[in-house]
């Protein structure tokens, strides 16, 4: 159907029916689409039982007749609909979160269907879904208790309904596999038959939720619920939205971020068929065309707008490198941590000291699905189809942009073709709404790859300086770190960061667990006109590379094995030690790999999860580097879906490896230079290492994230291996900028 529904109805493609839709029909269906992305677990080819129920998504004005509450609907045939209030962008929480509900609900997993929760419903029903964002690897961590509660409440209400029907005490009834049973009488009744009665029941008190040691379902690997839709083209992404009368928009944005549109001559579009309108925005110009996006894009290509770019138009990367370097090495900075007396330890007699500077460039997110949004503006109602990492925030922004009340706005979240932090800010949606208001027709705006890469909100550029001291026995006595990096919070105007210390700027640096008596960490925030934002693993994406490389430098200076050197400094952190030991055991650490090959080790904690990696590399005599294998051990405390967790570790490694090997966005005349995958290359199969994931879970109170931590140590592990093999220390990324020929 028209992009607003992902269903698994018997594999038949009904997308072509879009034109047959009347507008009225569409609007009703569109409204339901807010919760209309339904994924039936029972439809998995590998599951024995087929699911036949058609969930009735919430229609925007009333609740479904089968709703137990905003989260769960159970239909008479027992199918269970679980509403998912985050965003599925590949990180697997559309599977993990319903697993948490199912753990408590005691339902038959093969009867579960999942659909996106409606941000509009959340607005109307007192913020029932709460925070709907998928950022910071927090979906499981921040939803778990609530979702366990949701499942447990529903279960107890189903039990109460059965007990009332049988007139027995609820305490004598048990729920399992979507059936409530009463052992004494042998009576059994399916959830489906209880749902409408259960929906009327109010519990006197919320039931207790299970402690992790009582889980029977959480922790068991489950195939992802969205996979079947993603092997036959059925999964609907925002870019797949098709509406009746829809037109297409292509956009040219000021090439220098922050600049504005000066003028544009529309004459070249005169007499061009299919052109609907040229829409001027403050910093962009869009061409709207009928029939295909291509037509809009080709129309736009004929326009050659002029821009006001200001002083930013004469900046370049060389200048930025110097500015960050200067800020890392001189001037003042805010102190984020200060243990002992670093200065005296560094100048103590007999101390062996080291200094180093690590540097990283801007990076683009380059999600596989470029930014796009489809908007249907009807004056008093706004429907938006957009791949967003924060549908609730998108709704607020959309309402502001359109000048509507939040309850008049319907965000239809879709599968997201990669987020990595980019899609928590929906710049494309704001533009699409402005265009839709100007033309008063449903419109789909698509950014080309070049638009997407050059108008990103980038991973900040940074320079990080280190000083270290070792005593005569090679024991570390001082560690001084200063990072000079772009402030994400200032760039996004979330916070001015008045004390000069931004949490993501110093994460992994200030809270590093190495026991070094004199430790000082400083933060110098510095922004250019290039906008920066969250990028998968955020601060860890540069900080892990820097600190884990420098620790390796210290180990080398101390003449110690990098594993033993680290282990000796981790006395207070048994979880770190377990990860280190696990990765070392499973990687044959220390074994000779033969000529041209070597290993490197790194470990980092990111979003509550500790990941250790050993990289095994080969360098050819011509200097060609191949990362052959990454052995990885992780501790997130607990894990909901080990299969999904392992996949995230693997994906995180590849994402970080791309950055380590090739990632670089440079600026010339104020313009980000790289525009597509030829200039911003990606790791492909030929460069992809074998990745072995090992669990080193320590349980307890800890619930770490999965989406981001996997890549944190990768660059350092690879660079430490390069050093082990060649003696060449890589202190700036990407690695491709360094000549490794003749060094192996």
């Amino acid at each position, binding site marked *: 159907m028209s992009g607003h529904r992902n269903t698994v109805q018997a594999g038949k493609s009904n997308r072509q029916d879009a034109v047959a839709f009347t507008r009225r029909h569409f609007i009703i269906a569109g409204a339901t689409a807010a919760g209309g992305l339904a994924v039936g677990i029972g439809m998995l080819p590998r599951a024995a039982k087929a699911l036949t129920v058609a969930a009735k998504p919430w229609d925007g004005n009333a609740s479904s007749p089968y709703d137990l509450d905003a989260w769960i609907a159970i239909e008479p045939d027992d199918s269970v609909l679980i509403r998912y209030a985050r965003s599925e962008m590949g990180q697997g929480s559309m599977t993990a979160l319903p697993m948490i509900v199912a753990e408590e609900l005691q339902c038959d997993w093969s009867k579960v269907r999942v659909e996106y929760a409606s941000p509009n419903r959340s607005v109307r029903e007192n913020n029932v879904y709460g925070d709907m964002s998928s950022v910071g690897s927090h979906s499981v961590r921040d939803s778990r208790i609530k979702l366990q509660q949701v499942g447990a409440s529903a279960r107890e209400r189903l039990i109460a309904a059965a007990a009332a029907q049988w007139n027995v005490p609820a305490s004598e009834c048990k729920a399992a596999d979507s059936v409530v049973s009463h052992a004494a009488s042998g009576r059994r009744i399916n959830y489906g038959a209880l749902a409408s009665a259960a929906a009327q029941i109010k519990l006197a008190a919320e039931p207790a939720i299970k402690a992790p040691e009582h889980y029977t379902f959480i922790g068991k690997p489950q195939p992802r619920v969205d996979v079947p839709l993603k092997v036959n*083209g059925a999964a609907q992404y925002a870019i797949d939205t098709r509406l009746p009368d829809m037109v297409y928009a292509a956009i040219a944005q000021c090439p220098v971020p922050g600049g504005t549109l000066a003028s544009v001559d529309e004459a070249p579009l005169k007499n061009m068929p299919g052109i609907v309108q040229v829409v001027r925005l403050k910093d962009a110009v869009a061409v709207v065309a009928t029939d295909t996006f*291509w037509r809009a894009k080709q129309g736009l290509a004929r326009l050659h707008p002029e821009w006001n770019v200001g002083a930013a138009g004469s900046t370049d990367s060389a200048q930025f490198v110097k500015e960050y370097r200067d800020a890392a090495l001189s001037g003042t900075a805010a102190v984020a941590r200060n243990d002992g007396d670093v200065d005296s330890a560094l100048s103590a007699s007999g101390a062996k000291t080291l200094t180093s500077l690590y540097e990283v460039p801007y990076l683009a997110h380059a999600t596989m*699905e470029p930014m796009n949004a489809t908007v249907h503006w009807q004056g008093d109602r706004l429907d938006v189809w957009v791949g967003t990492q924060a549908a609730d925030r998108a709704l607020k922004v959309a309402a502001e942009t359109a000048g509507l009340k939040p309850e008049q706005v319907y965000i239809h979240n879709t599968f997201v073709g990669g987020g990595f932090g980019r899609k928590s800010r929906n710049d494309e949606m704001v533009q699409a709404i402005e265009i839709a208001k100007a033309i008063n027709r449903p419109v789909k705006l698509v950014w080309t790859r070049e638009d997407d890469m050059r108008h990103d909100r980038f991973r900040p550029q940074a320079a990080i300086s280190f000083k270290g001291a070792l005593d005569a026995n090679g024991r570390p006595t001082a560690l001084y770190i200063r990072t000079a990096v772009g402030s994400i919070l200032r760039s996004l105007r979330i916070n001015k960061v008045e004390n000069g210390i931004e949490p993501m700027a110093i994460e992994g640096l200030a809270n590093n667990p190495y026991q070094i008596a004199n430790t000082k960490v400083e933060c110098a925030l510095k922004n250019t006109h290039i906008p920066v934002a969250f990028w998968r693993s955020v601060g860890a994406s540069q900080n892990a590379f820097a600190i884990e490389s420098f620790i390796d430098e210290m180990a080398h200076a101390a003449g110690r094995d990098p594993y033993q050197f680290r282990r000796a400094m981790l006395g207070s952190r048994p979880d770190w030690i377990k990860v280190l030991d696990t990765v070392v055991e499973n990687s044959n650490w220390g074994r000779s790999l033969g000529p041209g090959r070597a290993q490197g080790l790194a470990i980092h904690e990111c979003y509550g999860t500790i990941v250790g990696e050993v990289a095994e590399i080969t360098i050819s005599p011509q200097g060609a580097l191949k990362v052959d294998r990454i052995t990885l051990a992780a501790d997130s405390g607990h894990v909901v879906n080990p299969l999904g967790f392992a996949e995230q570790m693997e994906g995180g490694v590849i994402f970080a490896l791309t950055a380590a090997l090739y990632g670089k966005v440079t600026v010339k005349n104020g313009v980000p230079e790289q525009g597509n995958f030829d200039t911003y290359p990606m790791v492909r199969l030929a460069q992809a290492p074998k990745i072995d994931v090992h669990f080193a879970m320590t349980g307890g109170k800890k619930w770490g994230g999965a989406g981001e931590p996997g890549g944190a140590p990768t660059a350092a592990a690879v660079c430490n291996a390069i050093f082990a093999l060649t003696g060449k220390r890589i202190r700036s990324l990407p690695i491709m900028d360094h000549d490794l020929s003749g060094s192996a």
Partner: protein
Amino acid sequence: MITIDVNGTQHQVDIEPDTPLLWVLRDVIGLTGTKFGCGIAECGACTVHINGRAMRSCSVPIGVLDGATILTIEGLSSDASHPVQKAWVAEDVPQCGYCQSGQIMATVAFLKDFPNPTDADINANITNICRCGTYERLRRAIHRAADLMKA
């Protein structure tokens, strides 16, 4: 007017001849399983079969396709039963899934030429990008699909 056969159905397309097949499939015919990723034949998200060969549809102008037979992900099987699709499900390959139509179409064509692929064959011939980094499982799934096709 250009006539193409897409998944067994004839379509008459009247459009500027420089329009890439990708946009004809997605915007004119309405088959959105084929994805736009780069537009310059670098990523493979738009891979379809043209006359039996895997091609990147973003870089094939419709003007050169009169009479061509095209297979997209939607036409690969009616019920996701193609061995490559089964292997993908069994190995739980997709993450965001956006690249996967292209990965699957590239693999289906590849396995015709390489029924017993080595890792080196895979590396050299499956050059599609997966930004989510599903390569570990992708590789396993390609081998599994090769086995399934023999069974």
